[in-house]
């Protein structure tokens, strides 16, 4: 009786919150893959990534792949590919893990976005340390998180799924408090 398909449930069921010009909303996931990058030969790694996806971003930066996905590079040995599905092909310099279910994504946009983040995020959010396209790993209220600055006033937060509902609630409280 394997005939009823399973439907996915979202990690965050709370509704998006918009106060003033700032918006906090869950971002539905279209696929997230964790790339484990070898620390071996950087040039060889860059070539393999280029062949498979597109340019390998510098550590702490991001780049669009040829297929339109976004490749984040939070650290030397990790990449996060957000967007279209990945066809894993054998490679020596890296391997990928489908972590679509692992990561919940939260979008924070608008003129108050930074005011919200500075109540939770320890590293520097300034334009020099964290410009457009930058990626960093730290924690928001004790939840390990990856932060991506998509645009000047637009941030994407990635957190493990089990924490997502709690964190969204906490950020919503902050959005109420800073306005």
């Amino acid at each position, binding site marked *: *009786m394997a005939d009823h398909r399973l439907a996915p449930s979202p990690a965050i069921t709370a509704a998006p919150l918009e106060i003033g010009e700032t918006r906090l909303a869950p971002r539905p996931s279209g696929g997230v893959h964790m790339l*484990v990058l070898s620390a071996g030969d950087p040039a060889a790694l860059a070539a393999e990534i280029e062949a498979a996806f597109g340019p390998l971003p510098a550590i702490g930066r991001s780049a669009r792949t040829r297929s339109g996905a976004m490749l984040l590079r939070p650290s030397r040995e990790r990449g996060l590919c957000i967007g279209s599905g990945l066809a894993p092909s054998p490679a020596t310099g890296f391997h990928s893990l489908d972590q679509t*279910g692992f990561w919940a994504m939260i979008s924070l946009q608008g003129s108050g976005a930074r005011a919200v983040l500075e*109540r939770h995020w320890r590293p520097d959010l300034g334009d020099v340390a964290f410009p457009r396209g930058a990626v960093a790993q730290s924690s928001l209220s*004790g939840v390990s998180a990856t932060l991506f600055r998509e645009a000047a006033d637009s941030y994407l937060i990635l957190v493990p*799924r089990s924490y997502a509902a709690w*964190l969204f609630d*906490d950020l919503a409280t902050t959005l109420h408090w800073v306005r």
Partner: protein
Amino acid sequence: MSGAFRLSGGLVDRDHRLRFAFNGRQYEGLAGDTLASALLANGVRLVGRSFKYHRPRGIFSAGSEEPNALVTLGEGRAALPNTRATMVELTDGIAAFSQNHLGPLGFDPLAVTDLLAPFLGAGFYYKTFMWPKAFWERVYEPLIRKAAGLGRLPTDPDPRLYDKGHLHCDLLVVGAGPAGLAAARAAGAAGARVILADEGFRPGGRLLAERHEIDGMSGADWAAAQWQALAALPNVRLMPRATALGLYDHGIAGVLERIAPEARAVDKPAEIFWRVRARRIVLAAGATERPLVFPGNDRPGIMLAGAVQAFVNRWAVAPGRRVAILANHDGGEALAAELAGAGLDIAAVIDARGDPQVLGTKGRGGLRSLTLADGRRIACDALAVSGGWSPNLHLAVHRDGKPAWRDDIQAFVPGAALPDGLAVAGAAGGSFGLRDCLDEGTRAGQAAATACGFRPPGAPGFTTDNTQHPPAPFRELSPGQGRAWVDLQNDVTAKDIRLAHREGFRSVEHLKRYTTLGMATDQGKTGNLAALALMAQQTGRGIPETGTTRYRPPYVPVSLGALAGREGGRGFKPVRRTPLHDWSAARGASFVESGLWLRAEWFAQDGESGWRDSVDREVMAVRTAVGICDVSTLGKIDIQGRDAAAFVDFVYCNGFAKLPVGRVRYGLMLREDGIVMDDGTCARLGEHHYLMTTTTANAAPVFQHLEFVRQCLRPDLDVHLVPDTDSWAQIAVAGPKARALLTRLVDAPFDISNAGFPFMACAELTVCGGTKARLFRISFSGELGYELAVPAPFGSALAEAMTGAGADLGVTPYGVEALNVLRIEKGHVSGPELNGQTAPAHLGLRRMAAQGKDYIGRVLAGRTRVDGAETARLVGLLPCDRAQPLTAGAHLLEPGAPRTQAHDLGWISSVAFSPSLGHDIGLALLNDGAARIGTRLRAVDAMAGAEVEVEIVSPHFIDPEGARQRG
């Protein structure tokens, strides 16, 4: 006019009147007032009673250093005790109450202690309260506890909200007086990211209290203009009402921001505690004035001269009708002229450097007159006292710095060795001329901007005065002629300091602790220098040699709530929910906290009267039909790489190198000392691909441990680790009908028969028409068991599909309570047995420790001694009288043995009521356990005073041969 003592002018808004109450009586004040200025404007001079002697006290200062005017602001659970009236921004409707008196403020019967003063000197409690001995706990201590302290804390939780945050900048300027404003302007103009923090609600510092002209504008107007210019710069963040509390490790400054009255709301934070990381800091925190020490120097109406100036100039309030001035420097005459110009009557200007000295004062409820040594009596109701100014150098020395003494200003200044990146400007560094302050601020701001890579534009100098009044060296006036106060808040007198010296407490740190001076909420801001000067005179050493006590954050008292932010109550830690959380809740689950996780403990059904009904039912469902349990919380670590097998083999004590692809094995992970760290299963999904599970609590510690092994112990291995716990929803399916249920869910052509998928097999497959999944045939319960994992988003749907597909099979959701009963019945070890004291041998798993390979824990395995438990072995227990309950934690003793540690044989680690057997069962760690099987012992619960006779048996109560899980 809002007050009989209100003058004209000032920086208050006469169009904006505010009502407030003090001790239940209504008064009127103006916007721009503090509670202190508004009280003085209304002629209220008596504001509290002193700590020890309950002497009447009045407002002493106009700022943060206030030692006397401590009030309780508000009532009920929102009351804030020990609030400095000088720092309360007056708002409409506030109610304040004086502290530390029995009955009305004006008549406090406890003032009788003032008469007992000769017996209550410094350290009196070290010499009393010793007899009779029994009285200490029953009489003295409760009495002292009641008498101690100033304000009273509400006993209900603080209703206020608080928040915390992090800020980064190129330059943090502490203080928006002239030096700070100049520094911020200079650095801001260069384009640097500047944060300017000031404790007050209006920028300007002493410019608001004194009469200066800067570039043709009044000091107050100049300050306002600077603030406005700074506000227009996008790279500058202004923080009024923000106190820099301290400088901490790594140069982080803690800044406490109080929310402005107009922005306050009950559902928003009242205070925010910021951690500021600045590349450079300019400390422009100004200076605090010191009083003089003379007999009777604590009456209401006796104030710091700078405070009198501030009340008159900034708040347009006369502190009294006839003001006398006492100063040990040249500034007395100029102040007299200024006050007279404002309409005050000047009683006298006394030079404290010469004769005749002040002999005493009169006026218990408020100053009435002062007496000089030549017999003259001067009638006055206010006395402005100045002994010079002490730079507010605290932040410069919080990180173990030592201040330096300057004879020319008779004050301590920041020492030569400043914290990295910190510079001092203005009065905080000992410069008291206004033009010097402005120039130093500008230079400091420019230097900071340059250091951060900016090019500050040139700045013109300032046209203003540079008047200074260096004070004479400290001397006590009319010593021995009556009690002269040094620390007003803790009621410490000059006599106490002489006493401390006589009794041998001569170092400044001993002096502080013996007399308690400097230990009150004001931390001796106005009293410390006189105290150490007096001690220096007693010992004959100079002030620099005597030194200061250590300066510590916070600079002012801070609410614990602000330091906690949101991390209290439910917000203390994040909450983790499994993918099946909502589904479980909808089916009646109640949840238990397991670390940060919420796990379903049982699923109560209608008609059940308690948790035992639910748990017993769930256990029997697993033993006779099929149960499903959410096991998503167990840690999962994805291990891949050419040397993945070698890595896994290295971290587990049992062999993994030969584990075939498609098989899973129970693994025991040891610490270096051979004690079990964690247990779990490890599945080989591919030649170079393993999936390790851990216990829920140890997911992060095991991952950290594995990363340490990977990076530090075995960097030679090509292996990578990815935490994957949150990726998968995992459901245990256990019971005789487990296979029947799963057959209905797995997609063809997967062969789930016993032959096709035997015990300890694993596979990647799809279920329910195409959802990718992983299936593991493992059993924690001892029944035919599997664990089915699907990507987390599909967890709820899978659970729903299982209950739908298995309805006719009697499928039953079960929670962690039943999970625990089942594993105890089976005799599986878990958390209570893996308590950091047990090695494989203790658990009956000695055979798992492999012989032919190296692994973490190999060297010390079997050699680690845990006192008294070397021979401990895991056993099972039954109560001899089956109806009796067992207690986990009870200790095991021989019949007739005394209840002492020497006779302790072990303890019960896990207990459950076994629905399968109909009575309690237990697991225990018992010395020589194997040899004692079949014997009887006593299980002693010393805390409850209960004893149960128990029979020692094998720990495996159900299916010890393991036939069910292999079928």
